[in-house]
């Protein structure tokens, strides 16, 4: 517990030192340049399919905008869920230093969502809807706590792969690069906090779990990773691009060797953390 208190204090100081006003950071043109990339071409979900190859460069760039909107949309839905979980944990069963940091965490997530929403609504007129459906569970508080934080880590680690690399991709429009950079700057702290608290919770709970229970937990984590990845392959996007068979294209893109290799590469850091901690015993086959 001492470690998490010290980390929370340090991260709070960093959040204060890096506090900024995102509403003044970016220039928002009335219309976006149609001749620009908004998502790294090689990360576009159908990259490598014949459907992608047959698009004109102009259409590939249009698709990159839709993929950026999908990426920001899935971030909005993920962060909404994250904020509900974080606010539930404010001033509850943890030292005050943790609550102090959770305030920064929630505040930063709120600002991210606002930027993502502005981009989606301004340039596509919509946020893609979520398919996430939550059902009540009967988990104990500690177990629910662990599963909440491990999902936070997985979600943010995968997102950060994109943020980090796209902020560095000079082919992308400045606004897309800037939003990715801004998000990455905060996520570094969130991931650090998430990793530490998740490992602490896991190490506390694991001795109490039977082998069967541990297997169930690991299966749940694997299923969450797969579900999270599938949000990046959105038939709504393919439909907006007027592809004839949006769901078939989803299946084709998902099963492609190239996209499997991409997911393995993008998830490597996250999977290593989960494997090293014993939260997984095998690399996800997604």
């Amino acid at each position, binding site marked *: 517990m001492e470690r998490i208190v010290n980390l929370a204090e340090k991260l709070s100081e960093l959040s204060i030192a890096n506090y900024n006003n995102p509403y003044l950071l970016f220039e928002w043109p009335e219309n976006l340049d149609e001749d620009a990339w908004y998502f790294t071409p090689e990360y576009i979900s159908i990259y490598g399919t014949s459907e992608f190859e047959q698009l004109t460069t102009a259409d590939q760039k249009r698709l990159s905008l839709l993929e950026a909107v999908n990426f920001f949309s899935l971030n909005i839905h993920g962060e909404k869920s994250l904020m509900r979980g974080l606010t539930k944990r404010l001033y509850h069963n943890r030292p005050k230093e943790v609550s102090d940091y959770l305030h920064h965490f929630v505040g930063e997530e709120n600002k991210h969502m606002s930027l993502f929403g502005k981009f989606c609504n301004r340039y596509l007129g919509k946020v893609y*809807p*979520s*398919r*996430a*459906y*939550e*059902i009540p*569970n009967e988990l104990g508080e500690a177990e629910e706590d662990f599963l909440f934080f491990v999902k936070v880590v997985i979600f943010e680690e995968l997102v950060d792969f994109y943020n980090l690399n796209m902020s560095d991709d000079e082919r992308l429009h400045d606004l897309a690069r800037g939003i990715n950079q801004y998000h990455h700057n905060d996520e570094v702290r969130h991931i650090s906090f998430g990793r530490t608290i998740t490992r602490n919770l896991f190490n506390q709970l694991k001795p109490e779990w039977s082998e069967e229970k541990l297997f*169930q937990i690991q*299966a*749940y984590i694997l*299923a*969450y990773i*797969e*579900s999270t990845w*599938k*949000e990046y392959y959105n*038939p*709504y996007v393919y*439909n907006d691009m007027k592809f*004839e*068979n*949006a*769901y*078939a294209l*989803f299946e084709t893109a998902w099963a492609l060797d190239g996209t499997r290799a991409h997911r393995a590469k993008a998830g490597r850091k996250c999977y290593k953390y989960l494997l090293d901690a014993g939260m997984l015993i095998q690399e996800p086959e997604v």
Partner: protein
Amino acid sequence: MKSEVEIRQSLRQWISTKSKTVDVEKLQDSTRILEERIITSVQLMDLIMYLEFLMGKPVDVTQLKPGVFNTINSIYESFFENTPTSSSVSEVVKC
């Protein structure tokens, strides 16, 4: 039209494949798939996408009623009963 029998068979096959813990032959339409941990709650998003594929239209998750995913029976009744379905999965394309 894809028949009720075909839709139920498709659902049993999908759930069995995703579960890895239950054979499709042993899965009943009345089996409580979440309660019995045949699939987990995090797989619902994936299931919803599959339902969209079978139906050929998007699912608005905000309109779903509690218990809709309890069994294959409840899934069929909620998503397919009185809903026109396609004669061929390959023809189902629009979100």
